[in-house]
């Protein structure tokens, strides 16, 4: 099990995308290539007028059983032993896109300009400096939280509608479901 995880409170996410803009600037991810490490997916459940709406902010889930790592033929994707963060070493990435095809969350994204993959690092540099990830740090409503997985584990559930079956990858994300 990885040390850290994200906790997403669905009743509080307003789809403002501040998290995505924070990720983009902190990590200096190139624009215009549709490489978006974090993105917000709007959910509309039910039939008008009885609908439940919320945003889900999603990035890499730094899975405990990461299929991307297993699929990577070049050893570019690795699990950091001290905390389970799944990292991509671009110098080793050969752009075969195997990880992309096995990740159920669209986390590793192909940068067609560099011909390499690109992926959320959980802001490993910030974590090492004792800070929260950039996306979590700016979330105005507190919908996106970060913590030790042991702490957030009982604050949320593992599965929500339309989320890929978690037993397959054991993702480090929990959700506070939206009532109603």
């Amino acid at each position, binding site marked *: 099990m990885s040390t850290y995880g994200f906790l997403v409170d669905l*009743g*509080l*996410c*307003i*789809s*403002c*995308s*501040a998290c*995505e*803009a*924070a990720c*983009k*600037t*902190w*990590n*200096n991810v190139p*624009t*215009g*290539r*549709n490489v*978006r490490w974090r*993105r*917000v*997916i*709007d*959910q*509309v*459940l*039910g*039939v*008008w*007028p009885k*609908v439940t*709406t*919320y*945003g*889900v902010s*999603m990035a890499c889930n730094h899975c405990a059983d990461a299929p991307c790592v297993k699929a990577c033929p070049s050893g570019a994707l690795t699990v950091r032993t001290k905390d389970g963060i799944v990292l991509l070493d671009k110098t080793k990435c050969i752009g075969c896109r195997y990880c*992309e095809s096995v990740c*159920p*969350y*669209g986390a590793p*994204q192909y940068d067609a300009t560099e011909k390499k993959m690109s992926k959320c690092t959980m802001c490993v*540099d*910030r974590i090492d*400096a004792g800070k929260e990830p*950039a996306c979590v*740090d*700016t*979330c*105005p*409503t*507190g919908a996106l939280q970060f913590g030790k997985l042991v702490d957030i584990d009982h604050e949320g559930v593992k599965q929500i*509608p*339309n*989320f*890929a079956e978690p037993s397959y990858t054991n993702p480090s994300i929990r959700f506070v479901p939206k009532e109603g």
Partner: protein
Amino acid sequence: MNTLDANRREFLKTSGTALAGAAVLPGFLDGIVRKASGPVPLADTATQIISDCAWCGSACGMKATVSGGVLTFVEGLPEDIQGGGKMCAKGKAATGYLYDPDRLKYPMKRTNPVKGVGVDAGWVRITWDEALDLATAKLKETIEKNGRDSVMILGLASPDVWARFQNCIGTSNRFDHWDECFLANRVVSANVIGGFVWGHDFANAKYIVTFGWDVVGKAKVVWARAVTDAKKKGAKIVSFNPYKAAGTSVVADEAISIRPGSDLAVVNAMIHVILAENLYDKAFVEGLTNFPQYETEIRAHFAPYTPEWAEALSDVPAETITRIAREFATNGPAIAPIHKKTPSANYANGSETTFAITILNVLAGTIDRPGGRFFPRTHTIPGIDAIVPPPAYPAKSGVDIVGRHRHPFLKAVGSGMFSCLADGLRKNPGKIQMGIITRYSTMAFPNPPEVEAELKKIPFTVVCDIFPNEIIELADVVLPSALYLEVSDLVARDHHAPYKMTVVRQPVVPPQFETKPLGSILLAWGLKAFPEYWKNPDGTPINMGYVLDEKTKRAGLGANFAEMKAKGFVKEVAPFVPRTSFPTASGKINIYVKAFADAGFEPLPTWKQKRDVPSSQYPFYLLTIIPPMHIRNTTENNRITNEIKGTNEVFINVQTARGLGISEGDTIKVRSRVGEIQVPARLTEAIRPDCVLVPHGFGHQSRLMTAAYGKGAKDAILVPGQSMDDILARKDVGGAACIMDAVVSIAKI
């Protein structure tokens, strides 16, 4: 953002629509290359500078990380309670504006005499002196030959330096977007509570009910944080909205569908219930308002507005209206916010809606109370005229081309009227000989093609802007303005200011290329055009540094601006002392506004229908939103926010779409009585079946905005403009622009 309807897709490959490669135009507008690469250095290897964000009025305090002279990152300033250490997507995308390769970089003049949106102006680079000499010669010549009113300004009345320049010109033809924003709220607030306020103490409210204003969905951090804080503390949130994916509806305990433009009916019915059942805050209403004096008139006025009557107009069940009214009045502190645009500008009944919502807050007894709408406690920062008094300004005629002077309350405010501009220009051919436009796009108007057709007839236009939006295609001279990240100022808090707080604005990097702060531009232009107003008594030019030092000192913020820069943020935490008298003539709040009655308007909020209602030809209500990662017509070219949302679509209810044979992604022709656009269909269960929604801000036509150009369509093309005659005919006390007041047909192409 991607929208996935239930049971259609998993969170698989959420790649959305691939962005087409942006066309890069050859030319002299050479790109700027951001030097940093790789992750942002952590604070110990970089400098952090305190400043503030300028994309919305709340101006969240921020810390900017600058490394090797390059801005790399911005984050919130925790001690500033506007943002509380958080920033929204617009603010976070700071590097995207600063290093936008399309920024206006040098003064330019047109060589192609043929003007029009989409027509290449043949820009050539000129020096600041050439640009300002040209602008000065035209300004003097125009005033001399055709009089002061032949110069038209499209720009805000502030800041102080800009006001001084406008006063030197002395025209009465100055217009801005206020009628599309909070003009109606301003008129109503001035006459009911004695002044306009931004402050809403959501965090301490126990009951929040929103009509029209999607306070959370706009994603201003100050409000998004406060409303969700209230929610975490157990407050109940009720949102009336025909679109349930709007932010406030998303976080609300109850998201109630309402027929567009009928909010006034529901609010009046809530007032009916609160009065009939005597649920209002008696101490507040009887002690601090004119209710005792006008009780008979007030009760008689609201008596017919029953919940059953409102149900027929709004589709909100009468029992729901009654229940919400009772809960609102008895679970305080309660607040019904009214800020801007919505609800005050959307529909022809916007002023009345604003008036009714204001009264709802008064009845809850929360004006200037914890959990209510409150007057800001701010530092008083003097303007330049107080520091360097000008010679007497030329007198203004007080008569303008749209006819603001014909309306007593709009004349008093002296702002707004973009919605009437095309009509005003059309009715006064040849009157305007010169235009000066600051920071406005033609996308800011209803029916932009109509406005563009009139604006291009103006013989000479100077545009001062940051980005090359479509208005520069109607300009003769372009003056490139600096960004908030490159200028100095003092910004007193007013959005959420229970005590005095001021944050510094300081350059985190020097102005890029040849851009200049607006103050420097106006000083340089002023010295050429109106030298006596821009010099000290001893004949030396006004020193803007001295002015800023004096402002700092006189506002009690420090000995000089350098000291303020070192402090970054000044706050004087003090207990919040609720007002016991209000800044009206009588000191009491006016529920019954006699001034309105005396001028021939309704003294109490009176039901009126919106302007355009569905017909067999145009069966759908048009709705618009500004997506939360954008600010109206400004941020769409930022590479970061553009990537998050770069284009628009038409949201259609799933059942409605099926009935019309429309599938996801089909190209749809959306048509109103004034225009037509084409956008892809996006099917959703989150919208009323009788409404369609087209997000605002897309469809940029300026080729110089290479990221935003040609993506999406302008919702405003569907929205009719109006005239002062229309406003006076409907006895609209606040001159609402009707920016969402349109009905449309939709058809698959």
